[in-house]
């Protein structure tokens, strides 16, 4: 019998992996992938809570918004990354220090 706790465990693991990627990666696109993992973990929680606790479609609606905004976020982030690459020829966040005072 699968319960809410099982889903929460999976989403915790996904969240931690995503956070780990954001913390350790030296490549902006790989960090973006970490962000996607984090968003998915949160989304999984929303839908699981929606089924097991609240009932109805509220969690699914929130999940839908998250997916839509994740799409917008990815498009903008990649556009910025491409721009940075054209300017500085690197996408390592440690080296993009143009604004450093």
């Amino acid at each position, binding site marked *: 019998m699968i319960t809410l706790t099982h889903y929460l465990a999976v989403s915790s693991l996904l969240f931690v992996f995503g956070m780990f990627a954001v913390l350790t990666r*030296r490549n902006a696109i790989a960090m973006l992938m970490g962000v996607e993992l984090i968003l998915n973990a949160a989304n999984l929680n929303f839908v699981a809570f929606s089924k097991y606790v609240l009932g*109805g479609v509220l969690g699914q609606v929130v999940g839908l918004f998250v997916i839509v905004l994740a799409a917008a976020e990815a498009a903008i982030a990649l556009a910025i990354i491409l721009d940075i690459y054209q300017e500085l020829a690197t996408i390592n966040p440690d080296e993009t220090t143009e604004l450093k005072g």
Partner: protein
Amino acid sequence: MEAVVFYLLAGVAVVFAGVVVTTRNVVHAAFALMVSLGAVAGFYVLLDADFLAVIQLLVYVGGILVLVLFGVMMTSGRLIMQLRAPVGQLLPATFVGLILLGFLLHVGRSELPNNRTLVFEDSDGETARRVARLLRELGAESARLQSETARVVLTFQGAGPLRPEAVRDARRAVERGLQAARPSSSRLYVIQVQEVWGAPERLQIALERKGTPASDGMAPLDPSRIAEILQPLSPREDLRLIAVQGLRAVRVQGLSEAVYRRLREDPALRVLTPLSTTAGLGDALMLGEFLLPFEVAGLILLVALMGAAIIARKGITP
């Protein structure tokens, strides 16, 4: 069965998420992310969110990942690149990750408030009595029992085996009949046509309210009222409405986790699954309380994409 599928999906999702984090090759990371996100779509199916699962495939796997791959290929001279951080950064990250994981797992195990809900089929009233007895035995007096009509099934009878156009006309007639009775009321119901196995001259149309009665405060389904609305209409000369039956159900609210599991596993009780959650979702987004957020999200998306197009164009930034 559900457990097997769950553990399979969980294994795939977690292992490939691990690959995303540890591999040295960005393209491999992107494809591992594809598998991981696909597994999350599988979870959505398990959680009765079919629509969200398909959206996940369409937007994440078919859209965002293609974008990411394009980004990878446009920004990397060498495709294999140094991804790992120095040990001085890796160790604190692992430390923080483990603490966070422990914390999240601890929170996930904690007791939830007693507000699980279950709906059982209850054709003869026997189920309601059985559920009430079980609740008394388990000491769950705080749970609320409510008997209601969850679904109305209309049965049509034709002269001979039904032609496909008769099926279509019956569905349209029901939609129009409901709509004529109260404008926009046909949108309140999920309408599903079912052919009856072994009786080709019969046709059943099931009606179900979109959303839960508790959430929108509207009147529950009333079979006699629906029969009254639909009785005078005959979709075709060779098709008559012969029966309008309400499917009784008992809704149990305010259950604790243990009681919920006990009730779900009882072999004598049949859980009523809704005809479609997609219709409810569309209803909430297009007609219900989420219309404004939906529009705002759409606007943000539009502005964001225009901004992305402008940023990515060469020669606009100085």
